[in-house]
């Protein structure tokens, strides 16, 4: 039986997380390597089949928006885990804690006295004209002064192996259910590795999430609900999964109603008051009386109840102003301003098209850069210079000139690689890292993450909607 063979594995030209530049195995990866080399390719394929089946059987599926209705896809789980040694993790944790703390102060300030704007640390226009800035949140008194309760920051590792922040997701970061279920599948697949290699558990995430939400209410035994757009949403599995794991209600907009100054759920025994809502619908759709009038997903009047402090929403509306891609470029200044500290987890270099000389640089070098919409996500609406045609580049130059505030650019980063099974053979594939942070009584970083992997050879796009897969992420003790 043919064993899994690493002899042809290529690790040149990129930062490989398993092998150093002299092909030596990095610390922490030995046990995994031994296991892999003792297994046949065929066995690995069988395990992969069982894993895919497990995902389907628990309904871990999503609909891709452009697909016709009814096609349910799984996010392929590659069985080779990604390992993060303790000292790397300690650095990530410290950096994330600093960053989230500062961004929350930023939100309190922007929707409060706006000192950072008055002190001209960030251009006022850039913040107040940002599409995600919500004027209606101005002077809002949010419970416990916390805006970003649930965060999923996107990190990458550059060609030197340094972790950098690519995106701050302070609105509705998804994927945590994959972190949790990937671990369950891997534990069943490789119980023997877990015995030898001490991996930090992630299973208590839902308990921490529940505590984080309960913290927002003064009621000692609050009624908590997860608000989902419904079963047709691509992240519905996650919404139902989290509600089930936390043992709280899973509601849709139509289940909620505002009466007087409170929000109620429609139950079989009449109306029942709701205290905390983990909402997984965007700001725009939250309340048709205040935001998009055509929203069928939201709850008319809920924003008024929120403003009166009679219901807590997580995350707070208006957070988008702090994870906007143009504001992102100022995060090092934000940290310096509020904490008087140097940034621990660096940003990726970012060029603002709103600034004249930076825009000129972007247009002149568009073939080498990644261009992103400031309010885009999911890998949509971006240009990857080195992989684009001349026509696509011209189109983006035109868009940038028309709307310079709407675009930023970054150098094409050679994301780090991790061995990934491709037709029974391990090959290097590019990955990113999304740890999950909860901001309740304290800032809690779950020792694990969703690792997204670009399964196509050479691809740098890890989004699930664009041919990405996932890996279990093992943070070691």
């Amino acid at each position, binding site marked *: 039986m043919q064993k899994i063979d690493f002899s042809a594995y290529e690790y040149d030209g990129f930062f490989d997380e398993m092998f150093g530049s002299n092909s030596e195995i990095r610390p922490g990866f030995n046990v995994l390597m031994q296991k892999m080399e003792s297994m046949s390719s065929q066995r690995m394929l069988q395990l992969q089949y069982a894993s895919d089946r497990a995902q*389907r*059987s*628990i*309904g871990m599926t999503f609909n891709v928006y452009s697909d016709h209705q009814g096609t349910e896809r799984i996010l392929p789980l590659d069985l080779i885990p990604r390992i993060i040694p303790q000292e790397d993790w300690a650095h990530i944790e410290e950096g994330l804690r600093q960053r989230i703390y500062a961004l929350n102060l930023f939100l309190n300030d922007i929707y409060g006295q706006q000192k950072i704007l008055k002190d001209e640390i960030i251009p006022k226009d850039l913040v107040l004209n940002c599409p995600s800035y919500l004027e209606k949140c101005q002077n809002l008194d949010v419970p416990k002064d916390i805006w970003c309760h649930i965060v999923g920051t996107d990190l990458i590792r550059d060609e030197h192996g340094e972790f950098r922040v690519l995106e701050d997701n302070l609105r509705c970061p998804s994927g945590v259910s994959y972190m949790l279920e990937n671990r369950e599948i891997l534990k069943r697949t490789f119980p023997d590795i877990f015995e030898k290699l001490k991996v930090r558990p992630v299973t208590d995430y839902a308990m921490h999430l529940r505590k984080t939400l309960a913290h927002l209410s003064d009621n000692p035994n609050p009624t908590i609900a997860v608000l989902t757009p419904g*079963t047709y949403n691509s992240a*519905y599995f996650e919404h*139902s*999964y989290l*509600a*089930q794991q936390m*043992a*709280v*209600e*899973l*509601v*849709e907009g*139509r*289940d909620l*109603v505002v*009466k007087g100054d409170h929000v*109620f*759920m*429609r*139950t*079989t*025994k*009449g*109306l*029942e008051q709701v205290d905390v809502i983990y909402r997984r619908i965007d700001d725009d759709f939250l309340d048709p009386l205040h935001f998009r009038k055509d929203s069928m997903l939201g709850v008319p009047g809920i924003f008024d109840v929120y403003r009166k402090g009679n219901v807590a929403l997580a995350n707070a509306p208006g957070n988008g102003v702090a994870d906007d891609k143009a504001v992102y470029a100022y995060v090092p200044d934000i940290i310096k301003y509020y904490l008087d500290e140097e940034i621990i987890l660096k940003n990726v270099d970012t060029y603002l098209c709103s600034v004249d000389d930076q825009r000129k640089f972007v247009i002149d070098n568009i073939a080498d850069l990644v261009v992103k919409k400031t309010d885009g996500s999911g890998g949509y609406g971006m240009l990857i210079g080195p992989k684009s045609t001349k026509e696509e580049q011209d189109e983006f130059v035109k868009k940038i000139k028309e709307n310079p505030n709407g675009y930023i650019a970054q150098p094409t980063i050679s994301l780090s690689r991790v061995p990934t099974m491709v037709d029974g053979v391990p090959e290097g594939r590019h990955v990113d890292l999304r740890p999950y942070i909860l901001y309740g009584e304290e800032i809690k970083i779950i020792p694990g993450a969703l690792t997204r992997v670009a399964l196509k050879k050479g691809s740098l796009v890890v989004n699930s909607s664009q041919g990405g897969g996932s890996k279990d992420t093992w943070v070691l003790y």
Partner: protein
Amino acid sequence: MLSRTANSIYWMSRYLERAENYARFIDVNFNLSLELAPGFPEQWKPLVITTGGWPLYDKLYDTVSKSNVVDFLALHKKNPNSIRNCIIQARENARQIRPEITKEVWEQVNALYHYITNEDLVNDLMQNEPRTLLNEIKKGCQLLYGIFDATISRNEGWNFRIAGKYLERADKTSRVLDVKYHYLLPNTKSVGSTVDLIQWGALLKSVSAYDMYRKTFGTIQTHDIVAFLLLDRQFARSVLHCLIAVQQALHDISGNRAGYSNEAERRIGRLRSLLEYRKIEEVIGEGLHEFIDDVQVNINQINDAISETFFFNEEAIH
């Protein structure tokens, strides 16, 4: 419990029961068709009529044949009540209520769904071993009932599930009795003949009543069969037994023990007593078809009353 959740539990349960019943109906008719004397027509049309799907069938097919009917009832995508669509609906409802059910229940609902929507497998089985397919569906549903029983707390959701399941079952038993009786009875020539015995036996088998009926009555008699399927208190698929189960579930939901506290309870109580204090001679004397018709109208009204009482109720603030 959320009204929408209760609604989804109720309908998940009804669709599962429907799928299982249809699988059994088809299977029994299939079995029967293998043993018919030469020249005796196969009775596939009554089966379609039993399910209330005749007008749609008539539009979709030119002829009544075994393969057409089985295709229509088991798999047809345009038949909202085909086994396939029932299971898809049951699973869609189960998705809605994922936080209310256990992982074990959810995985089995999903397994059924992936089985029936695996078109290559299902089409192949339909061609070559249809009874294997029907058996898998039956067993899959029954396994699910067992998992419900073993893993779900006896809470409000449980009672909505019981209400849905038994109301659906009462409806299906009454329908199969109505149609079969209608087709079997006029055939006076064959009363007591082998054909007749086989036909009545098949009716019993289609509601899994054959063994329990024989233990109770010993011989196959028309009156006894009708009495057993309509009025027996103990047989798990008799209409009366099902109604008692629905009533119990509704009382458990409201906490009310005496009389009625809502419209759903009032209607179920009324229908139950209509059957409970009726003699089979009276029923047949007045006309079985008319009686069953009345039962079905009442079942629909109970369904509507449950909806209005629990699923679309916005009154009291608790």
